[in-house]
């Protein structure tokens, strides 16, 4: 158990959000806006990339891959390459990119130009979840201001570097967050994930050209990293989990919201319970379970509350920090109902290309629904595990994959977590022929 941190770390990506007008161009400029970009443009592109590598910034989209290392996978000798920024944020209970897009769009654009300069992108596309209407308005407005100011467009700040950015709206499909599906969508097609290999679009991406796909929060960190240096970022956190990170905290806490905390130095308990953070669960209640990093992850239980928010520690414990979404369920929660809802989500969002994902999610949803609504049988518990095992053989962590993308293996973890920990609750549903939780408190 690591001691709770006492010193407050710098607010790297949320620094401006205390201002009610944080999204405006005026506030941005008054608070150091575009200084990181100016500095970057005075450096060679490879030196900017070196700072990012030194920071060890892990991608904030879910997979947690080192950003600098991803950039280094671009093949040499192909001058046309693209930067695609993933703002499709649809992992349930994840709402940090939504905030960054709406509340600090210029910081995001500044990060995008820095990244495009470092990797030499010919054009950048900012793919924003279609449902983010206000976000789209704010970003489009900010982009116009950035063009007029000379931070985007031809010969940026007189550096000889030119870049066009295009804001692209999605149209409602969770799977388009998966990077190869996102590229298909950006090409005007259905969002079907591409068959791997190649494992990264770095070699063959948008229009078949080398492409880097990075998340909105990842990009939003770059202005600070360039301004303060990669070492200053790496000095925060521990091991591979450097810097700070935004955690989207939701569910049964008094103060749901996005909190930027130092990685590895903060524990789940601190995030959930500290008065200035989650504020704890309601009076007289206790934590029953929590989702540690998006609904694709296995769940954690009270005994893991003191684990630090460290990507590798959480991975070793059989779960993931994933998209940075933490959802707390207190002791009034019916875990059958909660895990059924997660499976229902995956069933609705499966793109349908792979049989285990398409059929498996439907089966799990059906069986979970009948257990929750009182029509379940005792054999259903083994049936659930059997179906889950067909989707992701072995039910191990990290999960085995028989499908084109990792949505498939993301389906079973919640159900398996709930079932292995609270088998008795499943059985009570079956025996009583109804959900034992009172309707208003489920």
């Amino acid at each position, binding site marked *: 158990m690591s001691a709770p941190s006492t010193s407050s770390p710098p607010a790297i990506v949320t620094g401006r959000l205390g201002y009610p007008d944080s999204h405006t161009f005026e506030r941005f400029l008054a608070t150091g806006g575009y200084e990181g970009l100016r500095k970057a443009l005075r450096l060679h592109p490879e030196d900017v990339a070196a700072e990012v590598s030194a920071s060890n910034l892990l991608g904030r989209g879910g997979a947690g891959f080192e950003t600098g290392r991803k950039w280094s996978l671009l093949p040499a000798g192909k001058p046309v390459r693209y930067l695609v920024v993933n703002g499709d944020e649809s992992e*349930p209970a994840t709402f940090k990119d939504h905030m960054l897009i709406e509340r600090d769009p210029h910081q995001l654009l500044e990060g995008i130009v820095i990244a495009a300069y470092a990797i030499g992108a010919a054009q950048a596309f900012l793919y924003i979840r*279609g449902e983010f209407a206000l976000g789209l*308005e704010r970003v489009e407005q900010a982009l116009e201001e950035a063009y007029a100011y000379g931070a985007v467009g031809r010969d940026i700040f007189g550096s000889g570097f030119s870049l066009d950015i295009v804001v692209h709206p999605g149209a409602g499909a969770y799977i388009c967050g998966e990077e190869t599906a996102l590229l298909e969508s950006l090409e005007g097609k259905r969002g079907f994930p591409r068959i791997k290999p190649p494992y990264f679009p770095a070699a063959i991406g948008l229009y078949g050209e080398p492409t880097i796909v990075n998340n909105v929060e990842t990009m939003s960190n770059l202005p600070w990293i360039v301004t303060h240096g990669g070492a200053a970022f790496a000095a925060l956190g521990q091991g591979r989990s450097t810097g700070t990170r935004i955690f989207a905290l939701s569910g049964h806490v008094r103060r749901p919201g996005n909190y930027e905390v130092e990685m590895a130095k903060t524990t789940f308990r601190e995030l959930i319970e500290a008065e200035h953070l989650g504020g704890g669960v309601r009076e007289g209640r206790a934590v029953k379970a929590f989702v540690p990093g998006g609904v694709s992850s296995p769940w954690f239980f009270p005994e893991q509350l003191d684990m630090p928010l460290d990507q590798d520690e959480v991975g070793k414990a059989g779960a993931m920090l994933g998209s940075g979404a933490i959802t707390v369920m207190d002791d009034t929660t019916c875990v059958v109902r*909660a895990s059924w809802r997660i499976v229902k989500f995956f069933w609705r969002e499966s793109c349908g290309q792979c049989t285990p994902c398409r059929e498996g999610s439907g089966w799990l949803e059906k069986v979970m629904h009948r257990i929750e609504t009182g029509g379940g049988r005792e054999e259903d518990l083994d049936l659930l595990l059997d179906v889950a095992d067909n989707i992701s053989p072995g039910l191990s962590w990290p999960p085995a994959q028989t499908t084109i993308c990792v949505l498939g293996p993301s389906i079973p973890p919640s159900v398996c977590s709930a079932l292995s920990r609270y088998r008795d609750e499943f059985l009570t549903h079956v025996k009583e022929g109804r959900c034992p939780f009172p309707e208003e408190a489920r």
Partner: protein
Amino acid sequence: MARFSPENLAHARLLLSLYPEPRSALLPLCHLAQAQDGWLTPEAMEQVAELVGVTPAEVLGTASFYDMLHTSPVGTYLIGVCTNLACLLAGGEELLRHAERSLGVAPGATTEDGMFTLEEVECVAACDRAPCAAVNWRYFGPLGPDAFDELVGQLRAGALAAEVPAHGVLSRVRRRRGLATTTEEVAAERRAADEERAARASAKAAEAQGSGDGGSRS
């Protein structure tokens, strides 16, 4: 009116000019058509197909993959109640059931007056306001039954016209400028930058080689 208005057609051409390949403009053009007509009409899909250079069937096939694009008419206000995990824990299902009773329609259906279409939606990334609902993609929450009815009342009375534009208007802020540089210009710029970078790398390697050799000799 299902073909693009002259103004929207001009905007469609601007959008097309932003992408290396025209088909990339397919979704943005579908959004544009939906903003004009409230839904994606067959005539609009035909025109989108002409503009991006695919068949109308391909536009329909693509559009039908995406939840936000409606190939049949919907109400002036699309109310999406979220029942995903964070909202579920805060009473999202109860809110949806209340909305059904209050509006008198099941999810997927439209009220008789054509004002509201109710939908059950997946997480809309507003979980700190759970349980929440989106009205034409503007978010409201936390919403209890009374707050929901008040919201519907305000929408009916037109009191929220400024915050919530009618029909499928996704964004009221439109891009006004095309690309600042041509593909050829950028390609030339990048080629030159790559060459300089390669020259710096080989100079550095030669230097390292030199000092490395020196080191091994001494």
